[in-house]
């Protein structure tokens, strides 16, 4: 337990927990609130539910809060143990935002596409996690969120391209979507574990 505490203290552990709780409250309070995104007027609007947007934002930002701030020191220790911790937190960072969407079901109608949305959240979280480990904690969340916003914008503006974007609003073709999400998640976990959340490139780019 002390190990975990120390591990989280060397990250933005408390803000991360606060963000998770805040998002959960927001998602539960919002219920089935939907915004319509319509960039191109002649195409039908793309609905964005609050429980999708908030969980996705959480998934995109969470890895940045779990970037080690004393990573040079952590590398001096027993690497195997540190890697195990890194893998554990990365797994949690992927699972928690998706779990928030599943939790949102208590306020949603039965036919809400929660499984598809949870997979969307995993895709974006994994993307943000990979980008955070490779490019640092400033660019990482921007990559994740940017991909999400770009993805839904393209889905609205060019419906023909929609099925090539692994973000769904329907519980259709879930099997294919699940494989994509799994591939993204495995890549993210591997990158995060190997780099311990902070690659050398990220170290060069981070000039905070």
């Amino acid at each position, binding site marked *: 337990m002390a190990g975990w505490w120390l591990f989280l203290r060397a990250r933005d552990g408390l803000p991360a927990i606060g963000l998770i709780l805040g998002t959960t409250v927001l998602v539960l309070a919002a219920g089935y609130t939907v915004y319509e995104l*319509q960039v191109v*007027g*002649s195409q039908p609007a793309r609905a964005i539910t609050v429980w999708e947007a908030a969980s996705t934002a959480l998934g995109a*930002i969470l890895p940045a809060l779990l970037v080690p701030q004393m990573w040079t020191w952590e590398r001096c220790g027993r690497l195997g143990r540190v890697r195990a911790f890194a893998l554990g937190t990365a797994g949690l960072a992927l699972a928690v935002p998706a779990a928030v969407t599943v939790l949102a079901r208590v306020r949603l109608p039965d036919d809400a596409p929660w499984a598809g949305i949870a997979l969307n959240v995993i895709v974006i979280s994994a993307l943000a996690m990979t980008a955070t480990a490779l490019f640092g904690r400033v660019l990482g969340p*921007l990559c994740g969120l940017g991909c999400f916003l770009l993805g839904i914008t393209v889905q609205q*503006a060019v419906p023909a391209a929609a099925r090539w974007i692994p973000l769904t609003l329907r519980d259709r073709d879930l099997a294919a979507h699940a494989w994509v999400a799994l591939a993204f998640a495995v890549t993210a976990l591997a990158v995060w574990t190997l780099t311990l959340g902070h690659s050398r490139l990220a170290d060069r780019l981070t000039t*905070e």
Partner: protein
Amino acid sequence: MRAQWRPFPVPTAHLVVLAVGTWAVVTAHATPILGWPYADWVAVSAEARQSLALAGPWAAVCGAWSAARFTGARNVVVTPGAARVGGELVTAMLLRLACAALLGYAAGLAPLLAMTARDATAGRIDLLVVAGSAVCLVCFVCGGYLVGTVLPLRAAPVTVLVVAYLVVVTADYHSPALAAVWTGGVAAGYVEDPRTSAFRILFFGVLAACLAAAAAFVQRDRTLPRAPRSWAGLAALGVPALLAISPIRPEGPAIQYEADPPRTCQDVRGVAVCVHTARSPILPEFADAVGRVLEAAGPLGRQVAGVSDVHLWDEESPTHVVVQLHPKDSWWRTQVVEELAFRVSGSATCREVGVEMGGEFDDLAPEFAHSAASGGVATWMVREAGEEGEDVGGGPEGVALADRLGRMEVGEVHDLLAPVAEDLAACRAGELIGPS
């Protein structure tokens, strides 16, 4: 004499990223309009605002990045004890950032403006709308810059991205005088309320200035990392807030119908076919589609005296048909044929009757036979006009009627329909659905 070394307040790379990104997203947003078959100044002017849906968040994130990267209290390029210049630095940075954003924005819109200036057949650019949109883009830069001043680098760009996108997505919930972008398109036949457009320039200008002033105040007080920070500068944002609730904010619809819109007409078989002059390049194809339906309609089309584009705001009457034109879609000619056939055959009357009856037809009711007869004739007309479109209406009985008419000569059909022309128009021609 040694040249004095003066650091450039924003690295060129930041400005290039901002300008190129803005250019790219504006181009991506404006490309569909380049494919329209006519050049429409109203829609192109509005596009300057609508493209902010993508350009605004991008510019705001870049502003936040530059501010957070170079103005932080712990920044290594500034000695911790140095007094910050606040206003001077903010002015220098924001001027360059705003210029870069505007440059990319202008480059993105330039092809569209050039094409419209060359091809437009009516109207002219709405400078108030374009100017208001440019000021709004600067406002996005300043807003991002302020957040970058207040928050650390790892939090600022993400926060700004989320907030800017929320501003865009929730545009519907704000007054049009205050919303960065509007939902729904504007096209020839409408005019944007000039008072709203002028107020937008004023409001976004004041907002941008106050955001910059707030950033300057916050930076001026920032000396040591541990020194208490003062947020008093944020009070400057009260000015635009007051402006937003002040009585000079225009009320009423921001988009109005154009009074006495210019029209271009063509005579087709004695019928005047008119479109808004801005859309005159599509008039020949429109007239051709109308001509094909009128030829198929024969005696039914005699009562029609005029067909016009809905954006001319003509009154609809039994002798005057108003048609929605969607030339952005490739199947718009089929739509014209279907809509006209729907009107001429009386199906439109049947729909009104149906709505009056509560929208429900019992299979045995005489109204159902009337509706099927009109729908069948409409379907036959659409097929006769050479369109492969879907069946226009009338259900299985209507389609059966259309098939039956399709096996006859056109002259025979016209002879059959001529006596019941008035009944069809009034949705009373149920006897056509009889034993064949």
